[in-house]
């Protein structure tokens, strides 16, 4: 019953048991597919088997004639019903100055399909089996067209064209920096290095497939789905469905089985399911099969880059020059284009004082699944480039790669620092983080570890990545509502969205700091557009924006409640002190409990909103060091050491942030070593469409992480001093691992030729490299 002790145990900075967990470990979570409604119908989507084809005819009449089929829709049916295309407002120009281009995208394709898996028709049945039988009865006449699946081929003259407004398939193009100054810097440079880099296509692969359940409540449309951005889904439905206002839609999100950026914004299936529920006036559910997740949920990355670095004789980097082509898929979206053309460039120079850059970036359409956000979204691609270049330069110059990085790091005295993309870093002590990282990894002891590996017949390599990332999603204002309820509950409402990251627990800890009550008293409400609206959760923004709002709203609630306590106790509010769930008149034993006070109010609650406004993105940064062993006989790569020191400012939930960095690092290791979406070059067929063909990391991978946090450098631009953490591990791991493998192979005799390795570093790729064989990749 000792309240201050409770606070000490559950407030920020302490490891607490997550409030999400009791439900989840009991199997009592409420994932969307766990919900079933009376009279619920099932929707199945018919998808294009072709990468590129004209649709000559779609005949759904056979499906409609079947017993148990409630409705069948073609693209034309939806247009006739007033369903509008999905808008793609892309704020970038094409090379000729014309606006960004993309083919018009309909929820169900109208006259052409542009990737395998594109939705073409939908059938609603009283049961899943009835709907499946209906799908079999849909007739689609396709006229196949030639397909192209990679960015460079798509830009080549004579390539199949996806969209008339872009005969070169370029959706948009951006040039950043100063090309002439860059050329001059390269001309005077003592050292120049150049790399061709493939940042391969990734399937985000949350284990919960997408599920949508739509139903009518009177005249209101209620859509429950697995999403990171409920408000964006609501707005997307309003923008596409006929005669629907925001007030007529409620989007709800229950438990989300992983997001990783993939569940941001509206999907075609959301629109079709909502349309079906509205027109049939009964609940309709659609559950993606894993095959549909692979072919019809957004992919990430897929950027080809030719990257160059110019250095002075002393190792000072003079300039960076990058030419990239991002394959954004069959339809360009604002997110798919923004990520490679702007978000990545914001961190191109990372933590280094590089004055001059020249970036030429194109977003190219081809006959593959559209690209969207995937954990890191632009920053992993940019950081991979600069970290690979530093290793290449260090190898060429014969300098320790950590030393070359150190010489170029921005100094604390330079803060706030404006990088060549006009991004302002508020703080950062990068050399200090580097030193701690080198110590944690025992950098100097590597030679003896390499010798020991050699005795076992293994090639040992070491890779480093020192980096920062941009967080906040460019939406830095967030609101929170607090309600104190008589039953002893403090309810926090936020438009940010839980997706497994433990944000509810972190918010609860922040509320405990202010209210001084046990964490069991805190309840967090998210995922309901009737309760809160906002940007949602992406870009590692939730804690430092939404958490700030929770902090502010909690403080305002206590201040407001002090006034109410003054009234109840007939004392001046200035004489009231609040401590651990109780208001007391100073110097007396007169007092009232917080929840008792709530019960006395006419509304039987005390409620207050709060807004937090961050002054800029937060810039989490880190030093990640990986060691690998390569088996020269098989090409197998094993991660054998991984040490990281991370500056994420103030830490609210130590166990949660460790889980974010280490779990995120395993995703980054997955990209480095095994994951890859593969399309057949001729047919455009998706070859990696199951977990048998797409290799996610499994339990036999590396788990021995050494992870530390430096909390001494709080963010200066938000009320909490916290920096985003959700994507940090993923961004650092990929270059650290690849640099380690290249180091091992370079040392094994390949020298700088090892830099031709391209991800994923599968045993086959590494074994062939050891035998001098590399895949050639056409670069932009």
């Amino acid at each position, binding site marked *: 019953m000792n309240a201050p002790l409770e606070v000490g145990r559950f407030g920020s900075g302490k490891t607490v048991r997550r409030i999400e967990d009791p439900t989840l470990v*009991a199997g009592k979570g409420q994932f969307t597919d766990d919900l079933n409604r009376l009279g619920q119908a099932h929707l199945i989507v018919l998808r294009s088997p072709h990468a590129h084809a004209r649709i000559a005819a779609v005949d759904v009449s056979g499906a409609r004639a079947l017993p148990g089929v409630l409705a069948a829709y073609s693209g034309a049916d939806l247009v006739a019903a007033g369903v509008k295309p999905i808008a793609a407002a892309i704020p970038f120009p094409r090379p000729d100055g014309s606006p960004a281009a993309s083919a018009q995208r309909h929820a169900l394709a109208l006259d052409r399909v542009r990737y395998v898996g594109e939705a073409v028709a939908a059938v609603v049945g009283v049961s899943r089996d009835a709907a499946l039988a209906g799908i079999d009865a849909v007739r689609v006449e396709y006229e196949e067209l030639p397909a192209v699946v990679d960015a460079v081929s798509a830009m080549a003259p004579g390539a199949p064209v996806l969209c008339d407004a872009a005969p070169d398939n370029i959706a948009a193009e951006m040039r950043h920096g100063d090309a002439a100054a860059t050329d001059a810097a390269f001309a005077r440079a003592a050292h120049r290095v150049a790399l061709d880099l493939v940042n391969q296509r990734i399937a985000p692969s949350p284990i919960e497939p997408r599920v949508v359940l739509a139903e009518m409540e009177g005249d209101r449309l209620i859509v429950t789905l697995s999403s990171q951005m409920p408000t964006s889904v609501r707005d997307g439905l309003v923008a596409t469905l006929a005669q629907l206002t925001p007030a007529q839609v409620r989007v709800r999100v229950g438990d989300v089985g992983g997001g990783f950026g993939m569940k941001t914004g509206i999907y075609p299936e959301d629109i079709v399911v909502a349309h079906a529920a509205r027109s049939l006036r009964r609940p309709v559910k659609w559950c993606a099969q*894993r095959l549909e997740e692979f072919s019809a949920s957004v992919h990430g990355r897929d950027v080809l880059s030719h990257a160059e670095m110019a250095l002075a004789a002393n190792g000072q980097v003079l300039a960076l020059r990058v030419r990239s082509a991002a394959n954004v898929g069959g339809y360009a979206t604002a997110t798919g284009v923004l990520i490679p053309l702007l978000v990545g460039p914001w961190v191109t120079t990372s933590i280094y004082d590089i004055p001059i850059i020249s970036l030429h970036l194109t977003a190219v359409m081809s006959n593959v699944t559209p690209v969207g956000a995937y954990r890191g979204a632009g920053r992993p691609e940019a950081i991979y480039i600069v970290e690979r270049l530093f290793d290449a330069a260090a190898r060429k110059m014969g300098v320790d790669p950590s030393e070359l990085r150190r010489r170029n790091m921005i100094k604390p005295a330079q803060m706030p620092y404006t990088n060549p993309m006009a991004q302002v870093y508020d703080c950062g002590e990068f050399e200090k983080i580097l030193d701690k990282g080198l110590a944690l990894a025992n950098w100097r002891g590597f030679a003896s570890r390499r010798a020991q590996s050699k005795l076992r017949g293994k090639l040992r390599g070491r890779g480093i990545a020192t980096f920062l990332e941009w967080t906040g999603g460019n939406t830095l204002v967030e609101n929170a509502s607090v309600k104190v309820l008589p039953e002893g509950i403090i309810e926090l409402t936020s438009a940010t969205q839980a997706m497994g990251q433990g944000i509810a627990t972190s918010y609860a800890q922040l509320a405990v700091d202010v209210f001084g009550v046990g964490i069991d008293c805190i309840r967090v409400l998210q995922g309901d557009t009737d309760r809160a609206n906002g940007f949602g959760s992406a870009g590692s923004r939730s804690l430092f924006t939404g958490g700030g709002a929770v902090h502010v709203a909690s403080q305002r609630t206590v201040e407001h409640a002090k006034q109410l306590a003054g009234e109840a106790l007939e004392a001046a509010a200035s004489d009231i002190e609040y401590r651990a769930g109780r208001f007391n008149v100073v110097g007396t034993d007169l007092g009232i409990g917080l929840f008792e006070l709530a019960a006395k109010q006419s509304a039987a609650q005390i409620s207050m909103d709060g807004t937090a406004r961050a002054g800029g993105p937060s810039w989490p940064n880190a030093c990640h060091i990986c060691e690998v062993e390569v088996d020269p006989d098989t090409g197998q790569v094993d991660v054998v050491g991984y040490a990281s020191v991370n500056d994420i400012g103030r830490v609210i939930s130590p166990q949660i942030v460790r*889980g974010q960095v280490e779990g995120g690092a395993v*995703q980054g290791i997955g990209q480095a070593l095994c994951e890859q979406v593969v399309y057949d070059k001729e047919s455009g067929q998706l070859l990696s469409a199951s977990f048998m063909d797409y290799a996610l990391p499994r339990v036999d991978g590396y788990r021995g992480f050494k992870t530390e946090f430096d909390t001494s450098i709080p963010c200066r631009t938000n009320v909490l001093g916290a920096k985003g953490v959700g994507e940090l591990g993923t961004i650092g791991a990929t270059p650290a691992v690849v640099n380690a493998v290249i180091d091992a192979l370079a040392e094994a005799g390949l020298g700088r030729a090892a830099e031709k390795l391209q991800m994923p570093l599968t045993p086959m790729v590494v074994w062939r490299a050891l035998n001098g064989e590399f895949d050639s990749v056409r670069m932009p």
Partner: protein
Amino acid sequence: MTSLRLQVNGQPVVTDIQPNTLLLDLLRGPLGLTGTHCGCDTGQCGACTVLLDDMAVKSCTLLALQAQDRHVATVEGLADATGKRHPLQEAFMACHGLQCGFCTPGILMAACGLLKSVAQPSEAQIVDALEGNLCRCTGYVNIVTAVQQAALAMAPSGGSR
């Protein structure tokens, strides 16, 4: 329709089902045990793992009829009759062995199957037992630790707990 008789979490179940009903769909549908999840529908992710006579199986690739006269255990049956959590559930909470929690029921059941046959498994045995379960959030780091901790807690001496 075919008649099916089995035990689920210790309770007798008698029902008529279509012969092509998957065990997963029987559990999640008519029996309302939605803790068992469908992550890939092809037997590769393990979110649907349950115990069939104490052996971990993937319920998405098993016909319900294959459970005829047998005993199925799901995540809902892990806690004891009083609602006290199983040591595995406690350990997953304590070790942060879950994030989004979608794969967790399957992983708990796979681990439970292991501990039924090997009370004090080695790390290699744990890794082997969980090889068929995918987790995208945790990187598996805390999952293996949690299983080790649960095994210790379940030891006759009560382990270090």
